[in-house]
């Protein structure tokens, strides 16, 4: 059976994922966020497709916003230098995008994995 998700439900899921993601990221190693997303995907019984989409949006927003926030709070030449190391031609916007992308795929793949586990039964 295909579950239909309304917009406000989806919004709520993204907010919860971002809040939980932020909390575990601050205190625990980076790979713990994925496990939390998977558990949430399992508990909320999200459809697999929506799982990836919502996980991606949450991870993307969380990592991009956090990166922006760090850079605003601690302005330095480091992002520009890293955008040359990676190499992104020194483009900090591109660095935000790549950071968000990694965070997004990471969030998406785990929420999807959690959601899929539920569909076994």
């Amino acid at each position, binding site marked *: 059976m295909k579950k239909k998700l309304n917009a406000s439900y989806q919004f709520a899921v993204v907010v919860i994922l971002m809040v939980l993601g932020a909390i575990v990221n601050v205190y625990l190693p980076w790979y713990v966020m994925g496990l939390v997303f998977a558990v949430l995907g399992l508990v909320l019984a999200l459809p697999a497709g929506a799982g990836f989409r919502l996980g991606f949006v949450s991870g993307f927003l969380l990592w991009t916003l956090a*990166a922006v926030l760090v850079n605003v709070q601690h*302005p330095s030449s480091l992002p520009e230098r890293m955008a040359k190391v990676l190499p992104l031609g020194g483009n900090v916007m591109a660095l935000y995008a790549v*950071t968000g992308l990694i965070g997004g795929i990471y969030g998406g793949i785990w929420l999807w994995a959690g959601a899929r586990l539920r569909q076994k039964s």
Partner: protein
Amino acid sequence: MKAIKSIFPLICAVIFTYALNRSWGTTPPFGKLLSPFHGFWVNAENPETEEASLELLKIPGLTAEVQVIYDEMGVPHVFAKNDHDLFMAQGYLTAKDRLWQMEFQTHFAGGRISEIVGEKGMGSDQFQRRMGSIYGAEKSFEGMKEDPKAEEALNAYSDGVNAYISGLSERQLPLEYKLLDYKPETWTPIKSALFLKNMSFVLASGTDDLKMTNILRKYGKKVAEDLFPNYPFDESPIIPVGSPIDFKPVPIPAGPADFTGLGSSMSTPEKDPNIGSNNWAVAGNKTVSGLPMLANDPHLTLQLPSIWYQMQLVAPGVNVYGSTMPGTPNVIIGFNKNVAWGVTNVGSDVLDWYQVKFKDASKREYWHDGKWKKTTLRIETFKVKGKENFVDTIFFTHHGPVVYLSHEKPFRSNIPVGHALRWIAHEKSQELSTFFQLNRAKNYEDYKKALSFYSAPAQNFVFASNEGDIALWVNGKFPLKAPLQGKYLLDGTNAAADWQGFIPQEHNPHVKNPVRGFVSSANQFSTDPSYPYYLGWQYAPSERGRRINERLSVMNKINMDSLRGLQNDNFNIRARKVLPLLMAHVKTNSASQAKALAALKAWNLQNSPESVGATIFETWVLTLQDQVWDDEFSADEKVPMNRPAMDRLIRMMEAEPQAIWWDNVKTASKKETMQDIISSSFGASVDSLTKQHGPLGSEWAWYKHKQTGVRHLIPGMDALSRLNIPIGGGGSIVNAATTKTGPSWRMVVELSKEGKPKAYGVYPGGQSGNPGSAHYDDLIDTWAKGDLKTLLYMENPDQKSPRLRKKIVLSSK
């Protein structure tokens, strides 16, 4: 099927996370690295505000409270109640700013780079260990431990570094650990010894014996000695000519008979380090203040994080300010209330090679002094990242390690195979005691005593005191040799070729309060040939030394600005001599060459950043040397040879226009003359400059051509480097900024009777090793401009100054 379908995404997620949690070759762990909560983003540091702040830090092991006040440059001024706490704080604070660098440099010195970068570090690692770097550090550590104060300093420093490491969470790791994906290990006192021994590698491992022997074998002794004379035609030695000798020399050993050896070597390209330094002290009768002044600028590889870290260290009995070397306790170059000191390198020959005759392939015995003697073996294990451990056996004769066996390929082309290395860096030594005592010295006698502990790398220790003394000791442990012993490879079977003891330390060349009113050194010959002992046949070219002495002898009413001016002097003393010789013979054969020649004629002989003349001259001199010597002296890469010095070539231009060396032996049909070579080298220079920078114009500016850069310690990490810095100077210029080397710390000190010295300094870098800090490279622009920062010499921790920023109190509670 359904189960697989459900499990499949989970497997993907795990693989994805695993892949992004680790590095793959040089590809960093992207997940960990990019996470804004864990990765590089976290390394960004706020620029300091003007507001003073106070922070309390707990460091177990301190016996009392230590106050640390940072100034606006990020220099910590450390006030401790005893030496133990002082050195513990030094270790802690240095690690706080420079941990990665400290560990990386000692990993390099100890031949452990392959643990971080994998197999590609193996060549360098094996070379370091075969040269006996760990063996030397162990010996040196033994020596250090004989002085209880040095041992206390080493242990406390080490504890301080470890206190910092143990308080670090993974997300607080310095950026480079995140990029290369590894973690700091526990610091040990022997790492400090490794770092100090590595300075011998940097400064006293130059060796031309193989190349000289190859020349000997090809051209014979007469040519070798004619083209590679043992004292330059133009020189202004460090110890003024005619200085009296205040000791009775010990007998000089007879030395071995001539030995031609096997020479040759399989080769790999070799780096040509352009490393030297300047220092001088002027007497009070030449200064505005009436008291001595001292200046020093050691030239090393320009690197980020910088090789130097400024600190002020205060405890009962000591208040010293200066440059420290991350990884070792004490101030290395600096000043206190009463004295100032500095160092430049001594180019004496303290490294020799002995051709080894093994009994058989097992290499357990070698022939020496008419009998078979046993080799000793040392096993070195290399933990190569991503590979299995590699175990290497090093064979030692009584001389030292056989660095490469006859069939092996050396890491550098100047290292002979099948030879044992005799090197001063393998001696037991007590350098730390020297610096500990210099930090606390009150007068000339204290300085003299401190130097007696020092062995390597030998340095010209310049000194000034507020009692009015200036002095310079060419100081280190020098082997007692027969004249020219070790200019060429030596016969390892002949006992007469062994080092026969050492020159007594009090016989080292020295001068105190000379009549000329100044002492100076710039790596040139220590003395003129009247000095009773043989120290070496080849030193750095004399230009910097001659220019400094020429200037200091006419300078009076000296102040900080005039000495700063001399440190930044761009005058090309070589061009003053060579250019008229070249101009007398050069012929141009195109409009662009004529234009370039006109520009050169109009040149003011200053290697200033914008100078086009400097670019043309320097290129011409290089091309000229290539054209004169390459045909005879670098033909076969398997038989590397030295090239005669510029000093010798100038002599040839002046006095030997008919010398056979002018002819290019590769053109059989034509016999080139001096005029031909001078003209063709000029033409080739202009062509190559036009090809590189377009037609003559502002793109030919000296700094754009020279490309001075301060590079990050990880090779190729341009994003963390500062390149194309607008600075003049050059290798034979007092302002010795070359492409990769240059003045790594500039200091000028004006002493004061009241114990309130005024000092100025800068280095091309910044106090922080963190590329995310404003102090990472904030001193480079000041350095490039030739300015100095006023150094804040504090007398007590409660002193007020608008330059003070944050304060940290360290305590065990």
